[in-house]
């Protein structure tokens, strides 16, 4: 599953999955988070693609 990073270690994310499932909270207290399922990736993908968000893709983990 994909990994996401966030320099601000106080960041925590809640979101909604594709069918309205409540996702999270996902904590970035270590600065990095590897998703457990596709629903978490659904939420963090949206943030990583948002230029205003503090969350980004961990490109070092990409194949």
């Amino acid at each position, binding site marked *: 599953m994909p990994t996401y990073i966030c320099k601000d270690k*106080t960041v925590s994310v*809640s979101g909604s999955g594709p*069918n309205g499932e409540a996702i999270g909270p996902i904590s970035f207290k270590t600065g990095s988070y590897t998703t457990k399922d596709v629903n978490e990736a659904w939420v963090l993908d949206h*943030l990583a693609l948002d230029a205003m968000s503090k969350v980004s893709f961990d490109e070092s983990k990409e194949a």
Partner: protein
Amino acid sequence: MPIVSPSNNYIVGIAKQTNEATVNTVEEYGAPVFSGTPLPMEGMDRVAVTDASAIDGDPFKLGDQHWEASNLVFPSFGLHMGRLLFSLYPTDTISGAGPYTHTYSGLGLGTTWQTMFHTDILGGAVEWTYEAGQCAGMSFSADENGGPLRVGYQIVGKRPTVASYTNATPQSTSTDGYFTVKGAVLKYEADSATPATELNVQSFNLAITRPVTPLATADGLSVAYLGIGKVSFDFSMTLLKDDHEMVRGAFFGAVGGSTPSNTIPTGSVEINCVHTITGGHSFKLTIPKVALFETPPEPDPAASPLTAAVTGYVFKPAAGDHVQPILINARSTAY
């Protein structure tokens, strides 16, 4: 002599569902309202057949039983408003070490399901639970009369039931406080992405609408599907008129323009609210890209103050959402 109950003994509750099927039995937040309530909804029709006498056919139910709240208006409570926002925006990113900054994003994507609750206004034993609701819109408004920022809330859900639930301590304007624009900073600019502080806003209304349509099926007694529409925006404000910028921009393509033009000048708006009790708490709505068009005012022999009616046409910004809420409050976990 019998007593008739007053109609203001009312608190409405809300709680986020973990998924569509898991209905809550415990309120997360309860709040008083300026107006509105969730209501059970159903349609009736008549069997359109001929008869031995010229009389209307018998009625039947349409099978579209669901629930809606189309006119709820809340005071803007610091904690409660975060729950409402998270039912319209699918992502809440929290940061900070207290107070906590909640940044909402993802408009147009799927949102969490909500349960709503209230006790019958007549009081006593009849408690209503409204299952599996999807937010259909929010609005934010204030005017020169002050008081709380008014938060309009629309929601459409699948099934109302009479079922007992556990109350939360309701939000209170006196002990919890609320957000207000009195004493805060309102900013706009007709032709710049950087809004400037302005002192002439008399009133404003910002509405974010996402239609939710209950979809009945041939065999269903109540609605099992909700159709989610696309998000739209309506922004308007009334200004005490002090310049010619917007009316020239609307017709002539630039705030200093003087000949007809097809160009649309875009500006920005920032609405800030302060909290009545806790200084570090705040609420901000940013519209990063918006065309602010003023309708030229009419002369008035009664010599009323010259005001300008402004309509905002919201654009997709270079980054982020069309309308960007940031809530700073005491909730340490993401909604």
